[in-house]
C-alpha cells in the first residue's frame, strides 16, 4: 500500500471516529436530559396538585362545598400528560421521538399550570423557562415542536374560546401570531445557541479523534521499537 493511500485511510478512520464520538456525546446529553425531564414532569405534577389544593381546594354553591374540579384536573389530567413522555424517558432515553414528546408535554404543563393558577401573568413565564430547559437537548427541532404546541393551543382556543386567550369575544384572526411571535423570538436565539453548541461538540469530537489516532500511532511505534530492541538483544 502506498503512503498516500495509507494517509487517506487514516484520515477516513479519524473522520469516522470523530463522528462516533460526536454521536456518543450527543446521545449521552439527550439521555441525561430525557431522565432530567422525567423527574421534572413528575415534580410539576406534584406541584400542580399542591397548587390546586392550596389555591382552589373547594368549589362552592351557597353553603355547600365540593372538591374543586381543579384538584381532579391536576391529578388526572396531570397524570395523563406525564404518562407517555415519562414512559418514553424511562424506556427509551435518547430516542429522537422521546424528546419531541417531552417538548409537547412540557408545553401542555404550561397550559395546565396557567389554568390552575387562575391565568396569572407570572405563570406564563413557565413557557419561556421551559423553552430554555428544552434547549438542553441542543436539538433545535425540539424547540419547533414546543412552538407548534403553543401556536396550536392559541389557534384552537382562539377559535372556540377566544375570551380565554385574548380577553375579547371576537379577536382579529391574526392575534395568535402576535403571541406566537414572542415565543418564536426566544426560540430563534435558543436554536442559534443549540447549533453553536453542536458545532463545538463536533470540534471537540474531531480533536478527540485526532488525539486518539496520535496516541494509537505512538503506541504502535513504541511497540515496534520494543520488539526491535528485544530481537537485537
Amino acid at each position, binding site marked *: 500500500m502506498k503512503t498516500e493511500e495509507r494517509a487517506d485511510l487514516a484520515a477516513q478512520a479519524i473522520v469516522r471516529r470523530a463522528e462516533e464520538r460526536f454521536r456518543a456525546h450527543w446521545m449521552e446529553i439527550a439521555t441525561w436530559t430525557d431522565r432530567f425531564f422525567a423527574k421534572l414532569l413528575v415534580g410539576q405534577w406534584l406541584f400542580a396538585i399542591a397548587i390546586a389544593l392550596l389555591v382552589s381546594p373547594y368549589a362552592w*354553591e*351557597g353553603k355547600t362545598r365540593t372538591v374543586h374540579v381543579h384538584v381532579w384536573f391536576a391529578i388526572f389530567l396531570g397524570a395523563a400528560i406525564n404518562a407517555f413522555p415519562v414512559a418514553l424517558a424511562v*424506556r427509551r*432515553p435518547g430516542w429522537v421521538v422521546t424528546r419531541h414528546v417531552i417538548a409537547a408535554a412540557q408545553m401542555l404543563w404550561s397550559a395546565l399550570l396557567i*389554568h390552575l393558577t387562575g391565568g396569572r401573568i407570572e405563570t406564563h413565564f413557565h413557557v419561556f423557562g421551559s423553552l430554555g430547559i428544552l434547549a438542553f437537548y441542543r436539538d433545535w427541532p425540539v424547540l419547533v415542536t414546543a412552538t407548534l404546541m403553543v401556536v396550536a393551543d392559541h389557534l384552537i382556543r382562539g377559535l372556540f374560546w377566544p375570551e380565554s386567550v385574548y380577553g375579547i369575544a371576537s379577536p382579529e384572526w391574526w392575534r395568535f401570531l402576535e403571541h406566537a411571535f414572542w415565543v418564536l423570538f426566544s426560540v430563534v436565539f435558543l436554536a442559534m445557541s443549540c447549533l453553536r453548541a453542536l458545532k463545538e461538540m463536533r470540534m471537540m469530537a474531531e480533536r478527540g479523534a485526532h488525539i486518539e489516532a496520535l496516541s494509537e500511532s505512538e503506541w504502535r511505534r513504541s511497540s515496534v521499537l520494543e520488539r526491535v530492541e528485544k530481537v537485537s538483544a
Partner: protein
Amino acid sequence: MTAVTTDAPLACLFIPDMRTEWSGWLAFGIVWVLTLAPGFALLWAYKMRPGEADGAPDVWPVGTRIARNRDRATLVLFAHPQCPCTRASLAELARLMARFEGRLGANVVFLRPLDVGGDWDSSDLWRRASTIPGVTVVRDDDGVEAARFHASTSGATVLYDVQGRLLFSGGITSARGHEGDSAGLQRISSLLRTGKADRSDAPVYGCSMRHEARPALAIQKETP
C-alpha cells in the same frame, strides 16, 4: 434499560424487531393524544361556563344599605367569601381601581348566610378586598343585598352612574377564576372613559351564591 441506537424514527419501520416496538409506542401516542384532547376541552369548557345572571335593576334600588357615590360612578361587586374563582375578579377590580383612581368608588359585598359559623366570611378574599384602595367591604347577611341587585353568581358586578342609572351588569373576568383582559373589564373601562360601550353586559364566572335559606335569592325583584 435500552437506548435506541438510531436517531431516525423512520428507520424503525424497516427493522422487523423495532417495527413491533414502534407500533407499540405509536399506539401509546395515539391513546395519549385521544386522552389529552378531551381532557383539555373539558377544562376549557368548565372555565368558560358562565354562572347565572338575572340582570341588575335599571336604577339604584331603594332601601339598600350600600352607599352610592354622588360625585362619581359606583361599582358593586358581589362575592362569595370562599369562592376561589373570585380571587381573579378581585385582581381585576384592583386593576380597574388603579386605572380609574378618584373617578370610581367601589363596594365589595360578601355573602353571609344566616346559619354559618363565626369566621365563615373572614377569608383571604375579604382581606384582599379590604386592601384595594377606594373599595369598601360590606357584609351581606343572608344575601339580602345580592337579592336587591339580582346577583346570584360570585363575581357579579354592577356599575351605576352618579344619577343611579345602571351602566353595566356582568362579570369582569374572561373565564372562571381567570385573570387577564375581559369583555366586561373593557366595557366598564370604555363606559368610564367615554360614557359608551358596545354592550352593557358580560358573562359572570364564579361560584353560585344561591343558598338554602333563600332559594329564590335572585327572583326577589324590587322596584326603585
